[in-house]
């Protein structure tokens, strides 16, 4: 099963086994990762599941759609070049080891 590493703003890393097909957001909620709020439930209406994707993995992700790009414009912590919404990242076997960093705040 692919692993995803969530890194808190303080730098603490937690490695979670995530079934392929699950989103990075859903896996965070299921495993009690603080720092993902997911207010809208994963429909690209809020920015509260914002993450910074590790550069090594960023280019392996399918590119963000327009709706996601637009939401990133209103994130509570300003977007960076590797910003994504974790509700739009589906974990695959190829993404094993994916590292995402959580912003200081989501709201």
């Amino acid at each position, binding site marked *: 099963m692919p692993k995803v590493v969530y890194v808190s703003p303080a730098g603490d890393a937690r490695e979670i086994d995530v079934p392929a097909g699950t989103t990075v957001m*859903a896996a965070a*909620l*299921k495993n*009690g990762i603080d720092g993902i709020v997911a*207010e*809208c*439930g994963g*429909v*690209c*209406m*809020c*920015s*509260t599941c914002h993450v910074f994707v590790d550069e090594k993995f960023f280019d392996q992700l399918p590119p963000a759609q*327009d*709706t996601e*790009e*637009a*939401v990133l*414009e*209103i*994130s*509570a912590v300003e977007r960076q070049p590797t910003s994504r919404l974790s509700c739009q990242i589906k974990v695959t076997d190829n993404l094993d080891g994916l590292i995402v960093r959580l912003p200081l705040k*989501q*709201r």
Partner: protein
Amino acid sequence: MKNGTVIIGSGQAGFQTAASLRTEGYEEKITLIGEEPHIPYQRPPLSKGFPLGTQDFESIELRPEQFYQDHQIDLLAGEKVAAIEGAARQVKLESGRLFPYEKLVLAVGARNRTLSLKGAELDGVLYLRSLDEAVVVKDRLKNAQNIVVIGGGFIGLELAAVACSLGKSVTVLEALPRLMPRVVAPLISDFYRELHKSKGVKVVCGASVSEMEGLGGKVRGVLLTDGTQYSADLVLIGVGVVPNIELAQNAGLRIANGIAVNEYLHTNNENIFAIGDCAEHPCVFANARIRLESVQNAADQAQCVAATIAGRRNVYRALPWFWTDQFDVKLQMAGISHGHDCVVARGNAESRKLSVFYFKAGRLIAIDSINRPLDHMMGRKLIANRVQLTPEQAADESVDLKKMASSSGTAHS
């Protein structure tokens, strides 16, 4: 040991209050009491992915059960509150248990408005608000063929889209002359009428329902006052909600169109707050006292009250936003368009990329967007920060909304 905070209602607002209290560093006891026999879940998918079969219960839980233990939130599911005893500062459950509180948050929500028409009690006439009701709707959709939806608002149209996508024959009956008449401009109503028609949904506006016809206790059709009949083996009704005010009323709290609260979301009892679908609050963006039924309103009001209870007194001033998903189209709405005196479009319906900007006395008050997500997100900033935008600029696609919005700080997400 202090009594802490008791929250009545375990929907989005109640859940978010509990969660945000902990995020805010609140260390007292938190008791979250819900009538439904489930852990808190998201309601929006109940009229979208859940009946369609693309989302199951696990995927719509707001948090897994473990969350409540991890955050020391006492979750009481399936418990009904009998009374709020304000003088004694305690809540009494129907089971007789008493919960004293220091602060009480009413997140009691709303319930479906029901139609008191002949035949309304027939088998196959359904409403949708709760998960249990959604389970029934999903189940009945399996074997139904002819579905009549009464109400051309968000819930009715979302259900119509689901039923149509499942291959059913669907008719939508809306009493007013156009779809979603209370919330969107005619341009948007027209777009959605065409969208539904193009998928095979029959849309009837100005339809005045007279009765539901049945045979052997089961619904067979819907009759309009003009004599038109529509056969149906399933009737889904989505004609709005009424706020649950009774507990508050019996406790002597002030009631208007909902439980009345001030800009801090306080009721007229300083220890009791009301938030979410049940709360009538002053809204700076509507310049009026309003009651909203939305995820944004529930979550932002919860956050506001949690901060206040945790010691960071907080005026509520979040910008309202909404969405509806029908077929493959998402309508995104920012602001409150009520009372607008000028409407301009950016883009057009033919390209399926359309935003409608609403102005009141020369000021931008709301934007509805179809497949123009950047307009929506920038709209939130423009409206929240009261950026001066003229109707001419709104209609002119060469005017960069992002640039205009970025000069004005950040919007609340």
